[in-house]
């Protein structure tokens, strides 16, 4: 029996998210045109909201499920195992963390009426309630409606339909949708002036759940790589018989297991330090696994239609979410 990855957080939530993501990937694989893909993603996103996942972390008295970090992580792991191309973590985990203490908005979020993209990366300034500046490649739900914008320690809610707010749309390397925001004195609602702590918490949660998604994607990618090498024949034999490739896969597996250890520790004790080390390691281990998977698939590894390359691009992208490895290193060194 060849390798089958075991989930960190097995159970119904994981399985449901996994089935959802696998079905999503199958449908999307047939669509090439960006516009057609965006339209399909909009349909899938509505289906996801129907399942109530936007309310997973929202308290019950705000209409949510009152779930824990581990409940959310189980969804992220299931979704990650098939590289779900929807902003599950940004909208369903980071946004409610930012909105902690805003019961009305949390209720809107849980009901699927508020679908914000999240802008934590800087580049935006605020003057008397008006936002200006640019934010590039912001992950977004298929139909952009609002943005939660951090400006230093302050948190704003911006209606993207308002005058002074413009955007163009892109697709990321992992097939998710993004916005380039261009703000010129766009009026926004100040939600909290001193939200520094919750902004930091939200970013950390995003980083941790990106790691969870990536670990899951790496497990699937390693399995697909093994299956491919077992089946692909060259020189009259399966590629899986060549030691150079066997060792490469062993290295991918060990890197994945090592990262899994870090992510499990961070899930158990979600402190800043644990998360930063996990995300730092993701930069190294994830990149390695993605690159090597492409390499040992040969020319097939260069094609967009191969499921393995979709996973590889998801893993590569995960590093750039919520602070790349150098950002993690910088904060670890600053704390030392």
């Amino acid at each position, binding site marked *: *029996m*060849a*390798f089958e990855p075991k989930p960190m957080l097995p159970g119904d939530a994981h399985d449901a998210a996994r089935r959802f993501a696998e079905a999503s990937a199958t449908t999307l694989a047939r669509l090439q045109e960006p516009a057609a893909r965006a339209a399909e993603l909009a349909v899938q996103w509505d289906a996801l909201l129907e399942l109530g996942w936007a309310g997973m972390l929202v308290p019950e008295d705000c209409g949510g499920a009152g779930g824990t970090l581990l409940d959310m992580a189980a969804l992220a792991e299931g979704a990650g195992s098939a590289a779900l191309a929807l902003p599950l973590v940004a909208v369903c985990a980071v946004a409610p963390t930012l909105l902690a203490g805003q019961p009305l908005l949390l209720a809107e979020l849980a009901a699927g009426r508020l679908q914000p993209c999240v802008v934590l990366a800087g580049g935006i300034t605020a003057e008397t309630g008006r936002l200006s500046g640019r934010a590039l490649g912001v992950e977004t739900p298929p139909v952009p409606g609002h943005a939660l914008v951090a400006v230093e320690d302050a948190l704003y809610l911006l209606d993207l339909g308002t005058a002074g707010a413009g955007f163009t749309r892109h697709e990321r390397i992992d097939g998710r949708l993004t916005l380039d925001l261009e703000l010129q004195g766009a009026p926004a609602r100040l939600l909290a002036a001193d939200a520094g702590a919750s902004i930091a918490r939200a970013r950390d949660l995003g980083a941790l759940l990106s790691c969870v998604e990536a670990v899951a994607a790496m497990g699937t990618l*390693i399995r697909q790589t*093994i299956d491919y*090498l*077992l089946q692909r024949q060259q020189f009259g034999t399966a590629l*899986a*018989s060549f*030691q150079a490739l*066997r*060792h490469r*896969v*062993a*290295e991918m*597996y*060990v890197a994945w*297991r*090592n*990262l*899994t*250890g*870090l992510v*499990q*520790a961070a899930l158990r004790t979600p402190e800043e330090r644990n998360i930063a*080390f*996990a995300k*730092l*390691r993701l930069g*190294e281990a994830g990149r390695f696994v993605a690159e090597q998977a492409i390499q040992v698939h040969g020319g097939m590894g260069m094609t967009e239609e191969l499921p393995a390359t979709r996973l590889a691009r998801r893993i590569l992208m995960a590093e750039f979410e919520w602070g790349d490895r150098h950002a993690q*290193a910088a904060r*670890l*060194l600053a704390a030392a």
Partner: protein
Amino acid sequence: MDETAELAAFRAEVRDFALTRCPPEIRAVVAANGKLGRKQWAPWQRILHAHGWGAPSWPKEHGGTGWDQRRRHIFDEVLAECDCPPQYHHGLRHLGPVLIAFGTEEQKARFLPGILSGEDWWCQGYSEPGAGSDLASLKTRAVREGEEYVVTGQKLWTSHAHEADWMYTLVRTNAEVKRQEGITLLLIPLDAPGIRVREVRTIDGWHHVNEVFLDAVRVPVANRIGEENKGWTYGKFLLDRERLGGANVAPAFRFLDRCRALVARELAAPGQALKREQLEYRLLLAEAELRGARELGRAAVEAVMAGEPLGLMPSELKLSTADTVQRIGAIALDAVGERVASRFRPVDASGPNAEVEDIEWVQNFMYLRAKTIFGGSNEVQKNVVAKQLFGM
């Protein structure tokens, strides 16, 4: 007391013991990344034994502590955190369990007390010039003559043979059968006539390994463990007992701390900022990997506690730590190499080691190359992992 409180109390007890009872001059050698020998290990073992902690992994009836895997893990971890030497493994962890499982009553009575007290010093005679990763190809021959075996051949890489009293040795007693089925495990005193031990000089400038030449050495049959030609089974049993050796990542964390301090001290000048930041970054990457390995180690300990199979965990641990530790050694080399590598060995002194300050970082870098070679090389570990992953 609930279990976690009990374990926390145990941890505190071990720490207190380690800090108050391990002689400062021995801890200083560990703290300075120095070379450990019988001179440091034997007195430390005596102290542990006197306290009843001589053999953490042995059952009580043989003088062990009877601790479960969790406590043993804590014990090893705390000793490392306190810069105490890890216990010398050849007698305690390798031979002892084999003696307990397969030895005769006479053998147990003769050998276990000396291992416990640190009185007898053991080394492992497995590898040979022609038998490394492929150990089963070993050729050192033992021919039975009455109540003795006559042993002739050569062992190689025998760590500590120059300071040991005894060598547990795999020898060939039958060359006609499948290779693994003609091997026997003998206990050979190193002062027996016909034995010659020669230093093998290694790249680190320390003396650990030797060649051991055996020329018609007469070994009583009473020194055979178990049955003739069953030595491979006992050797495998021994290695299986050691599979969790990699679970203790604490020494690697201490090594990392020391390297970090070295980088800060060595590269404090403003002109060194780029180099310092690069090395600090590499240290963080290494720390991340060690943290991952520490989790794998904990999971392995819990698997043992739950009676679950370890599967690939030992190989994962070895592959997750061996070259990480090498990388830490390389960071230290990068920090001081330019200053000290050019002064490795004094030409006019007799000893192999230079007295140059910080030269041990160069020695350690060199020594650490062995981490991916012995105990099942990285390549051999990857073969094991791949076989399992591919199912072929």
